[in-house]
């Protein structure tokens, strides 16, 4: 992608029209690399502030424990190369550990074989870290179907038959979000929903007890896991967002006071 084939390359290697893209990726990479290195060596990096509703995860597990019913986790319906699925994996580890600690049954329901394999590993590891490897049941991490609505109908079936008390849905959701959230709501589950797919968010906001909006799922994952790589990544992205904020402000002011001066626009188009 970065190697020019026909257009005259910039600096010998970068294709025209992709210099700004490359600089942005490089900048983000540097931010993240610096922050991860600092976090790993225990040096100070900006702290991720508490996200409203995140305590609800522990509250939901607590309630399921009291009721003696399972907690289920659905990491969206997309594969392992989807960033939202990766964010869900960070949370699953925390939820599985809490469930192992309180001896609460943990169900993970997946729609793609790759996250299924990874989640089984993560859950096994979580039970091991809590000193309860014997309590881990591989049959509770399930791959149901790669077909969206076949997956959805089997999740509804599991909701009906196994009656989880808490339903945590974090990841990339589509049309199934409303069906799942509505079913959970009618069964009186405590529900936490989070996705960056804006068209599905309203249903999580309406039908779940707590909703993580858009990018909050990435921050939540880092906040809960305290994992330096995730933590550094979220802070690095925050810095880039602040830079973009500033660029948009300057760009708009320039478009107002000096509409003919387009150097900033041209710079981003390099």
């Amino acid at each position, binding site marked *: 992608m970065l190697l020019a084939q026909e257009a005259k390359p910039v600096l010998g290697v970068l294709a025209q029209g992709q210099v700004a893209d490359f600089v942005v990726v490089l900048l983000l990479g540097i931010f993240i690399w610096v922050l991860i290195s600092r976090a790993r060596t225990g040096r100070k990096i900006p702290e991720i502030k508490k996200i409203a509703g995140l305590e609800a995860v522990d509250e939901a597990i607590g309630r399921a424990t009291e009721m003696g019913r399972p907690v289920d986790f659905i990491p969206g319906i*997309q594969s392992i190369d989807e960033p939202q699925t990766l964010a869900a994996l960070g949370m699953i580890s925390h939820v599985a550990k809490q469930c192992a600690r309180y001896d609460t049954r943990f169900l993970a329901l997946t729609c793609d074989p790759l996250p299924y394999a990874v989640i089984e590993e993560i859950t096994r590891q979580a039970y091991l870290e809590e000193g309860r490897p014997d309590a881990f049941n591989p049959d509770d991490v399930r791959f149901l179907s790669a077909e*969206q609505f076949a997956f959805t109908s089997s999740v509804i079936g599991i909701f009906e038959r196994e009656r989880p008390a808490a339903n945590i849905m974090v990841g*990339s959701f*589509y*049309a199934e979000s409303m069906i799942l959230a509505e079913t959970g709501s009618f069964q009186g589950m405590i529900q936490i929903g989070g996705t960056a797919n*804006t*068209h599905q968010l309203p249903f999580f906001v309406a039908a779940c007890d707590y909703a993580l909006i858009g990018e909050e799922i990435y921050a939540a994952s880092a906040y809960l896991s305290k994992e330096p790589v995730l933590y550094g990544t979220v802070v690095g992205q925050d810095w880039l967002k602040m830079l973009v904020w500033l660029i948009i402000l300057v760009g708009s002011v320039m478009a107002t006071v000096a509409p003919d001066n387009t150097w900033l626009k041209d710079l981003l188009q390099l």
Partner: protein
Amino acid sequence: MEKLMKIDRRIIYIIGVCVVVFTMLYPIGLPVKISDLARQTYAAVENLPDGSLVIISPMYDAGAMGELHPMFTVFFYHAAKRGYKIVVVNTSWVQGPQLVHPIAEEIAKEFGLVYGEDWINLGSKPGGSVFLQAAVTDLWGAALTDYTNRPIASFPIMNRVPKITAEFVNACLVLDCGTPGAPTWLTYVNEPENIPLIVGEIQMSVPENMPYVASGQYKGMIAGSRGCAEYELLVGRPGKAIKAQDTMSSIALLITLFIVLGNIGYLTTKKK
């Protein structure tokens, strides 16, 4: 007032079903005003150069065909009417090309288009964004066969399009209901290759995709069933979307009523 917040959902369903069935069987024929967005979208297809080649990509399956079938119909009809060459292909959504094939055949017959010369259905190709990126450099190598598994080398239309670049393709018309979808085409094909992208979006995805229209990255967008009804009027082929508008307007009114009632109940209970 508390009762307003606790209406049994089954009552809501029954009222909704009655409204749908009644308006379907006894249409009122409410007027449909054509929006600027529909005109922009129509113009984007209409004003392509004569003899253009367009790709129509039905990136959907049976779940979304209620809204997207009428959009495929108007796009295909419009392209056929203008005499463009048409390549139907998608990736990942396996059912899409199978579902649209009878519609394409019917319209092709209407305009006397010959399969393999004027239009072709390459079917669904696995790979998502990887397929799209491969098709940019070598569509023949990435697609290999058409919908019926015949080698694409045997179809004259394919001589016009060895790869999906601006040199060979004048526009991509993508019908989108999820991922991969129109933004995937934009990222891997249309933005890097500078090919106009015109999309058909299910109603649900309209707000999310509006920024792409505002930024000019989508040259046009059929916005849900309503947008499709407007396009049907513009292209002069009233179809399923226009028929659905009475029902959709009535349902919109009904849902608004339920939301107002629910909120009255909520606010009154909150005051207590």
